[in-house]
């Protein structure tokens, strides 16, 4: 562990590979969130994969590089916006549809069409869960590693 070296994070090789790899991990996470209603995956698993992509950047590049990709305060804000979006969708079901959490966007005819947007509000809820899980888990990891650093000093 090179904790006392002036440069943050791990070696150059690890950081370069991370820079190439993290975007693909992020892409896979977004795919899992968006296609969770047709294939295995979904908001929770995809959200954790997205969080893993940012955590990889954090581990390899240290706090300065992580702050360029995703600042901690942004992650906390987006994470808290996730459940609020879920709640807004649920309340919209009460106003525009018939009941709390009613699927008011569902097509009347042939709902099981199989397209990307065939789920109605299910899609929005998946997106909200993805935001909540990914950003809040990354924020929790950032808080943990921040407390680690202050302990070492």
């Amino acid at each position, binding site marked *: *562990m090179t904790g006392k070296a002036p440069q943050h994070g791990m070696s150059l090789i690890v950081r370069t590979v991370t820079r190439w790899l993290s975007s693909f991990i992020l892409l896979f996470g977004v795919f*899992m969130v968006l296609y*969770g*209603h*047709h*294939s*295995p*995956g*979904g908001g*929770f*698993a995809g959200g*954790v*994969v997205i*969080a*893993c992509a940012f*955590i990889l950047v954090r*581990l390899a590049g240290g706090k300065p590089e992580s702050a360029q990709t995703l600042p901690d305060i942004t992650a*906390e804000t987006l*994470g*808290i916006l*996730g*459940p609020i979006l*879920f*709640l807004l969708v*649920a309340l919209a079901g009460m106003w525009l549809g018939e009941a709390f*959490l009613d*699927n008011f966007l*569902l*097509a009347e005819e042939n*709902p*099981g*069409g*199989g397209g990307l947007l*065939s*789920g*109605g509000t*299910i899609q929005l*809820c*998946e997106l*909200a*869960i993805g935001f*909540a*899980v990914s950003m*809040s*888990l990354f*924020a*929790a*990891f950032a*808080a*943990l*590693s*921040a*407390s*680690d650093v*202050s*302990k070492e000093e």
Partner: protein
Amino acid sequence: MTLLAPLLVLMVIGAVIAIEIEDLLSAVVAVGAVGFLLAMAFLLLGAPDLAITQLVVEVLCLVILIRATIGRRAKPVTGNRGFIGLAASGGLLIAILLISLGAMATYPTFGRSVLDRLVDVPSHTYLRESVQSTGVGNAVTAILLDFRAYDTLGEVTVLICAVIGAIAVLRPVARVGKREPGEKGEEQSHDR
């Protein structure tokens, strides 16, 4: 089914190793092995959604745990556990085993749903009508976000509350306040 029994045996062995080993990092790795074997067991039982979630959460937990345990010297807990305590726990285990053996005889085979025996239960309706009534192909998503969406809303709320609590406890501001010299400075930083 034939692959499942060795997996379960390996999981028990991994759990015992995690408890008995002295090195903290090895214990964390053993716990991770139990989690990955559990993901494989889910896959063999035909639950890819659960397997993916288990795998991904296991990776994240392993990263966090290894980061937390690395470089931390843990004092191994040694010493006598006492004969009476050991005998009491052993007797309790045997009693629970004997009682549960009677219950196990009435169960369906491992991995089969108890509700398979009944004719008209909600789970059958969910599986039959998920595509028609919700428009999504994955029945797990249909149950999580349509039939049981209240449950998921509560789950996300619990998660975010836990994370907010963790951030509030672990934030660096409190750590900075601690380092200020003098007793009064510490009290003031607590008020903030």
